[in-house]
């Protein structure tokens, strides 16, 4: 019991240090885009429309919700597989964020 009391403060410090979590620094727009591009391009070899590929693209879009290239890539898998009703709303989002590039593709 005496020993337990002796180590009580040390134990408390250990628990406290584990509980402390350094807050991740906020990223600015260009850092977010760079990180999203890295996630997006790192998995470009994954088969289009596969669960791994779709999850990877969603992850990139989650980092930068305005990343039109990734949004467009997410939509393409549906169009090429005969599901234009799933393609359209996603492609519209890509056009919304980068009309200059993707409007001509969508029409």
């Amino acid at each position, binding site marked *: 019991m005496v020993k337990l009391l002796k180590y009580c403060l040390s134990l408390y410090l250990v628990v406290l240090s584990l509980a402390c979590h350094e807050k991740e620094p906020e990223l600015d727009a260009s850092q977010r885009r760079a990180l999203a591009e890295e996630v997006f391009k790192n*998995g470009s*070899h*994954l*088969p289009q*429309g*596969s*669960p*791994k590929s*779709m*999850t*990877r693209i*969603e*992850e990139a879009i989650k980092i930068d919700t305005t990343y039109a290239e990734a949004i467009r890539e997410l939509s393409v*898998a*549906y169009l*090429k*597989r*005969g*599901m*234009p*009703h*799933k*393609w*359209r709303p996603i492609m519209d989002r890509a056009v919304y964020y980068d009309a200059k590039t993707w409007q001509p593709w969508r029409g």
Partner: protein
Amino acid sequence: MKKWLKIFLFSLLGLVLLFLGFVGYGYYNYWGKFPVDEQKYSHNVEYINPDEARLNDGFKLCNERRIAQYYNPEKATYSKGKNRLRAFIMKNYVNKGYQDSGYLNIRFVINCHGKAGRYIMHENDLDLNPKKLDQDMVEQLFQLTTQFKERNPNIIREEFYDSYMYLSYRIENGEIIEILP
């Protein structure tokens, strides 16, 4: 055991472990490290659930786990060509006073023997929003589409593969304007 044999065996074991580590690292970087959102993407996006599909009874695939796309690398096509397909549809389709406009997409699987089955349909308006079309018209087009029994299966590395395929009908006021792809 002789000393040189011991050295040789341990060296061999070391090399094998090194090789396995190298292969494992490569696999992890290429495939393993990418997570899957199982809730949202439990299958490839083109997956057709056999339980929800039509004309699936008795329809066999060569490999349920590896179904290619119709366009990759060889085109899985109707054996008599698209012009014959279009001509057959246009000759036999009858507009029974339908007024609907939209897209009817019929997706299915062509197996490695060139047989088609596992059909599913998507009905949309001309802006590609889901919309129920005239059911008599839809059924007529479905019946016509399923007439094409003989198709060319996909070929990958000189081997026949199962593949997904679809036909899209653009319809305006009950008339077929275009058949894609």
